[in-house]
């Protein structure tokens, strides 16, 4: 069983947990993810490895409460155990040959972007982090990003934190001001990544997007995580989760992401009601 060693709320809907999982910690690299189940009847959900400590054998996850399983997860506390925790899955972020990178994160995607920024920083790469949130209450990992970036730009939709505007506005400004990036790495809502990739394509800056389709096994067995990249079908769990952003069919990915919406809404409400009763 996988014990929750630490639990911390980062904002009203985003929680950090450190899990005891020595086998995963031993092999984990930034960009990889795990799949967990909270209990014996639970669903398998993928979450990115936000951090790891090989020595103590712990793995950190940061998740946004969006539905039934993340809601259930958030109701567990330090000392409780997760039923299953498997990984590290997927390919690690490629860092070879990079000298200057813009990391563009949106919302909870910043939790996935942060370990990438940290790793690049440790490798001596110049990192510019551009992160966006809807408002100031949702900002996460600000200090952590600052510590790993030579430039940090905070954006919010309503201007309550950092500058008002979208991450694409900030990225465009930096590129226009003469910043030359070897690569842009973007992680966040599909719609945000779509527009980041559109922008960088115009400027000819190579861009990698981290995809998060619906997954079950995470080993290449079900094909549920498939997406189209450059006209070819790829499995995000084994071929990704990072792909060349200029080749991804984002519209298809957005449609696939909505496949179970009505079911999930229902399951979420049930889970919420369940916890209300318990309280």
């Amino acid at each position, binding site marked *: 069983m996988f014990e929750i060693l630490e639990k911390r709320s980062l904002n009203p809907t985003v929680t950090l947990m450190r899990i005891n999982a020595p086998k995963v910690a031993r092999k984990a690299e930034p960009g990889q993810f795990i799949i967990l189940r909270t209990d014996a*009847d639970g669903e398998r959900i993928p979450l990115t490895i936000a951090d790891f400590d090989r020595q103590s054998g712990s793995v950190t996850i940061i998740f946004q409460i969006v539905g039934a399983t993340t809601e259930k997860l958030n109701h567990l506390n330090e000392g409780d155990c997760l039923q299953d925790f498997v990984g590290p899955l997927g390919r690690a972020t490629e860092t070879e040959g990079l000298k200057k990178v813009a990391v563009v994160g949106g919302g909870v995607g910043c939790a996935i972007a942060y370990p990438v920024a940290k790793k690049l920083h440790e490798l001596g790469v110049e990192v510019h982090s551009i992160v966006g949130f809807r408002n100031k209450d949702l900002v996460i990992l600000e200090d952590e990003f600052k510590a790993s970036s030579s430039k940090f730009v905070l954006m919010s939709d309503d201007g309550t934190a950092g500058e008002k505007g979208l991450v694409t506005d900030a990225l465009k400004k930096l590129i226009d001001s003469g910043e030359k990036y070897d690569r842009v790495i973007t992680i966040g809502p599909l719609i945000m990544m779509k527009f980041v990739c559109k922008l960088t394509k115009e400027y000819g800056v190579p861009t990698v997007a981290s995809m998060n389709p619906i997954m079950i096994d995470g080993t290449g067995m079900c094909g549920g995580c498939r997406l189209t990249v450059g006209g070819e079908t790829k499995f995000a769990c084994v071929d990704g989760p990072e792909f060349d952003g200029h080749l991804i069919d984002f519209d298809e990915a957005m*449609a696939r992401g909505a*496949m179970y919406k009505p079911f999930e809404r229902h399951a979420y409400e049930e889970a919420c009601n369940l916890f209300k009763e318990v309280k």
Partner: protein
Amino acid sequence: MANMSPTRNEMPVQAPDVRNKNFSEVALGYTEEQAIDEAKRCLNCKNKPCSTGCPVQIDIPAFIAQVAEGNFAEAYKIITKSSSLPAVCGRVCPQETQCESKCVRGIKGEPVAIGRLERFVADWHNAQPETAPEIPAKNGHKAAVIGSGPSGLACAGDLAKKGYDVTIFEALHVAGGVLSYGIPEFRLPKSIVQKEIGGLKALGVKVETNTVVGKTISVDELMKEEGFESVFIGSGAGLPRFMNIPGENLNGVYSANEFLTRINLMKAYKEGSATPIKAGTKAVIVGGGNVAMDAARCAKRLGAEVYIVYRRTEAELPARAEEVEHAKEEGIIFKFLTNPIEIQATEDGWVKSVHCQQMELSEPDASGRAKPVPIEGAFVDIEADCVIMSIGTSPNPLIKSTTAGLDTQKWGGIIADEDGLTSKEGVYAGGDAVTGAATVILAMGAGKKAAAAMDKYMQNK
């Protein structure tokens, strides 16, 4: 006195109209009387033609003779000399092309129902009070098994019986391989699979689920750092193939693996399951093998009107005859000589219909096989809101790509000799990972063979 009836004892089954709405087992199994009566149809042929049709050469006449006498425990002992999973194989073996195809009683009438008798004996055994197994003395050697499908289970069992300290590493959270995630409950109750695994654990086999070899740990690390002297790879052929036709990534299109995994592994068919499934109101299953039949029958049970679309004719269906029969009885509609060429979408990106090319069989070619060829200009659209691609699987490249020195075929199969030895010293492989998608009994047989070779290797090291 032999029972000279030309027909076999019928298998009691749930009525088609009842069972196509539930996930309980379809075939209910013989009673003792039926089993003894059926066993008496066996002529106890000296040359055992039936055994030559069994990939693991069970001594069929010998076990059937014991059934005829009512000595079920003795019958079980005879079967388990050659087979590790009789309750499974008795249910899912393609008997009609194996043991039963060679039975002399089949020349003038129906062959002896060997599979049903094997199932009866195994179920009888499983219903007896549990006795603690004899724990073999440990021999001090450590072996690892990757994958907990029939090949891995058989290999682990045989090694444990010889005293090896065996650990099975399984990627998923449940052991059993296809027996757990693929073959549905109504054909193979999961309690039977878990009972087999429980038996192995009682022998001292350790099962580490949630371990993806190649990711969590590599084959080389198992051998160099964890002290496993020999490794068996039974990782199956779980990578789903798609047709690469337009519309395959629309919402509502599943691989059979995803559809079946949601249902069997994640129990999506149960009320209140956390994992969703959408069988739609009209489901089209593409393919004609066992997997297609299973997907079709699951979709039916979830309430859809179900079509199986297959590009050849009924005669070429690769699925077991019994499964095809059962599928038809349950109301599944077959469209033969039909080949999907495009999946068409609704405005919001869901499946609307499957556009198919009509086919005909050509004159047999040099190999004697008639090929399906398109009939020019003949198309048909089948309305559907769910499409399940069931056109085959191949071995997952994960282990190959993370194990230096492990040679594979171009199509991904691990190259192994008769005994299962791969290109890497101490590393053996078997089952679907070597042969490509095949059968439970072949996988089990390969696991047993490899166990024998691994034993020799570790003893002589």
